[in-house]
């Protein structure tokens, strides 16, 4: 293969590689798209998990939450993950979610102003991770878990939100 042929083949393969990576890519999320995402889940109880690759407690919590998610009907309950990683950590986040078989869509926080983003979700939240926010079927915040939390307490909150109907 000549150098020219090799270059052409490499250039031809590039868009394919991008397309192949696309299904696993993390969707950027800001204040507005966060609100839209919560609204789109109305009718279901929604658990939002804020995590990051650098957060050991988040990495430990993720498989427990995914197991919890699997125990509920998809028609009643949804869980989304929002990575708080920096752009250079995004590939690591993607790989971790892939390994965990985390459901899509998978989000990554990309706000112009992180403080404004955190305040828009809950002014009392310092931004500490892990952070879980549970929304009821009407899209209202029902419970939150900041820092390391017991699976039993998360489960109890989900159970209550599911029982409340809406």
């Amino acid at each position, binding site marked *: 293969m000549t150098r020219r042929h090799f270059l052409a083949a490499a250039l031809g393969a590039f868009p394919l590689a991008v397309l192949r990576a696309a299904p696993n890519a993390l969707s950027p999320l800001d204040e507005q798209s966060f609100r839209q995402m919560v609204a789109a889940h109305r009718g279901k109880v929604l658990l939002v998990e804020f995590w990051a690759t*650098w*957060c*050991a*407690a988040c990495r430990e919590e993720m498989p427990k939450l995914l197991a919890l998610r699997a125990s509920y009907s998809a028609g009643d309950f949804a869980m989304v993950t929002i990575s*708080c990683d*920096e*752009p*250079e950590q995004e590939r690591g986040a993607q790989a971790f979610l892939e390994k965990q078989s985390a459901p899509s869509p998978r989000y990554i926080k990309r706000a112009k102003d*992180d*403080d404004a983003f*955190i*305040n828009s979700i809950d002014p009392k939240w*310092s*931004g*500490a*991770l*892990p952070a879980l926010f549970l929304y009821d079927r009407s899209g209202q915040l029902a419970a939150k878990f*900041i*820092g*390391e939390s017991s699976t039993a307490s998360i489960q109890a909150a989900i159970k209550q939100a599911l029982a409340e109907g809406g």
Partner: protein
Amino acid sequence: MDGESAKANLCQFALRAGISNANPWSIANLRRWNSLMKHWLAALILFLSAGALATAQEYQVGSTVADFQVKRLDGTPASFSTLKGNVTVVIFISVQCPVSNAYNERMNALYRDYSAKGVKFIFVNANHTEPAAAVEEHARQHNFAFAVFKDENNVVADKFGATVTPETYVIDANGTLRYHGSIDNSQNESRVTSFRLRAALDAVLAGKQPPQTETKAFGCSIKRASR
């Protein structure tokens, strides 16, 4: 209060609760006493828990910071009153947290730049998972120009309401908390656009109000001791 007036007060109190004077020890009256005592016990518990909440109140910007104790890495005690300066920075840091570690160089630079201006720094490790020996080794590996103190049982972190590392507090000469939040706005130094702690320090040193008094500190959660 003498014995007689105490007795009179108790009678009045009993009458108000519907306990009649005719036969204070009748079954009906005993039930009322019982109910009365339950109410008072509930009120007492409420009062005591309100007191506990008041003492557990975390500092807010504008609060006066009371003296507190930390430990040097050799285990000897040190107090805020002896470590403080005209302007004091308290920074909660960690050995293992990648976000805290992303700030090691910046913290060294902050310490050098502002120590020269008379600012005192109290770097605190409140993670119960990180013993003094690990903190000492970490400081040595990263050539910290500053001392790190241990906050055993995270008493100081609780008082400040610190939840992550790194998380910073600026205290002025009067002991008033003037700034709380992050060092800057990005763990990646190349993307920093807002030097929040430096701006707060410059303002307080100049006798001015910091441009931002409260920002969101981001990082790893402080690993608290279970008490």
